[in-house]
C-alpha cells in the first residue's frame, strides 16, 4: 500500500465535506503505480486502521484522513480511529495529511515523536459551508492543494505546505468580493494549518527509503 485514505463520509455534519475531500484525494492519486487503500465510515476504527497500517511494517506510505478531530485523536462516530495513546506507532515513515479540527495541537506531535515523517493538519476548530453551497468546492480545493502539490508537482513537504497557503491566498482573493463571510471562514482554515516533522521530504525521497 502506498496511500491510505480514511474518510468518515457518514458523519451527519461534516460527512458531505470530508467525502468530497477524500474523493478528490483518491482521484489525484489514481495512478497505475500507486496502491490506494480506502477506509470509509463503516470500516473506520482504531483496530482496522492499525491493521492496515501495520501490514506495511516500516515501509513508508501517505496517510490521508478526513473526519472530525480533537487535539488528541481523529474520530469516527465519536470513537478514536487514530489517537495519541492508541495507535500512534503505526505511522512510522508516513507522510500524514489530514483535514480535521485541532489534531495538529497534540496528535501531530505525538505521531512525529513516534516515527511519522511529516504531519500536515489543523490547529483550530473550523467552519465549513453547507452541502448545498457551491463554494464548498473552493474549500475542498484548498484542503487538498498541499497533497496535490506533494504528489503531482513532487514538491517537498514544506513547499507543498506553502503551495497550500498560496492556494488559500488566491481563493481568498477571488471569493472576497462575492462572499466575504465565507471568505472569512476560508481564512480561518488557512491560518489554522500547520506542518510538523520533516519538511524536506519529497514523494520520491519518502518511497526511496523502502
Amino acid at each position, binding site marked *: 500500500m502506498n496511500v491510505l485514505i480514511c474518510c468518515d463520509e457518514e*458523519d*451527519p*455534519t*461534516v460527512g458531505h465535506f470530508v467525502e468530497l475531500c477524500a474523493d478528490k484525494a483518491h482521484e489525484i492519486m489514481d495512478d497505475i503505480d500507486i496502491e490506494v487503500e480506502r477506509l470509509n465510515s463503516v470500516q473506520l476504527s482504531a483496530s482496522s486502521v492499525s491493521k492496515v497500517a501495520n501490514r506495511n511494517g516500516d515501509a513508508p506510505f501517505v496517510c490521508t484522513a478526513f473526519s*472530525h478531530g480533537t487535539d488528541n485523536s481523529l474520530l469516527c462516530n465519536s470513537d478514536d480511529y487514530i489517537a495519541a495513546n492508541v495507535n500512534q506507532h503505526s505511522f512510522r515513515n508516513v507522510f500524514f495529511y489530514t483535514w480535521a*479540527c485541532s489534531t495538529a495541537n497534540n496528535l501531530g506531535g505525538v505521531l512525529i515523536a513516534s516515527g511519522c515523517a511529516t504531519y500536515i493538519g489543523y490547529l483550530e*476548530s*473550523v*467552519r*465549513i*459551508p*453547507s*452541502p*448545498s*453551497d457551491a463554494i464548498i468546492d473552493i474549500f475542498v480545493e484548498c484542503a487538498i492543494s498541499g497533497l496535490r502539490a506533494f504528489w503531482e508537482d513532487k514538491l517537498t513537504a514544506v513547499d507543498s505546505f506553502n503551495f497550500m497557503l498560496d492556494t488559500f*491566498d488566491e481563493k*481568498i*482573493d477571488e471569493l*472576497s468580493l462575492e462572499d*466575504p*463571510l*465565507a*471568505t*472569512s*471562514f476560508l*481564512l*480561518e482554515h488557512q*491560518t489554522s494549518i500547520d506542518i510538523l516533522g520533516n519538511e524536506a521530504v519529497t514523494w520520491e525521497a519518502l518511497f526511496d527509503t523502502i
Partner: protein
Amino acid sequence: MKSNINIIIIHDDIKPRSFLITKLEESFQNVILIDNPRDGITYVSKHYSEKMIIVLDINFGEEIDGYGVLEKIRDYSYLIEVVILSAEDLPGTQMIENVNKLFGFDTFDYIIRKPKNQDKLIQSIFKAKEKIDNSISSAIDKWIEVRDRDRRNKPYMIDHKGKSYTLDDIKKEINMQTTEGMQIEKNITMLAIKLMMDSSQKK
C-alpha cells in the same frame, strides 16, 4: 436618505409630537415612542436582531425602572446602543451610584433631561448611529440584508460542533454577541486586515 436604524424612545414624559421626535424623524425612518417599560421590553424581545438605538428613561414610577429595562435589553443584545435620558439631576454621590448601576451594561451615554441638553441628546444619538454604521456587525448585517430571502434562510455554514446556521442565524448570533457571533466578527476583521495588507503589498 433616512437611516434604517430604529430609534426607540422608552420614556413616560415625552410627547409624540415633541421637538426631539420631529427632529429625529427627519433623519431616521422609524422613531417609535413607548411610554412604559414593559412594552419597551416586549418591543426589544421581538426586534432585537434589528439595528436599534434606545433612548431610555430611568424613573417610570413602576416596579421596573430603567436599570431593569437595560438588564433585559442586554439579555437580548449587546449591539443595541442605549442612551440614558434621566430627569434626575442628582447630587454627586447619588449620580455616581446611578452610573455605577450601569456598569457592565454598556450604555452609550447618560444625559440629564434639561432644555439646554436637547442638542446634546440629539448629538449623542447621531454618534451612536455612527458607531453602529461603522461597526463590523453592521457591515455583515448590510451584506446579509441584500441577499434574497431564500438565500438567507438556506443552511449556509456548519460549525465544528456540527450546528448548521443560515445567514439570518449568523446575523442573530452576531447581534447577541454569542461566542460564535464574536468569532465570526473576529474572522471578518482578520479578513479585512489581510485584504488590506495584501493590497498594500501589491501596490
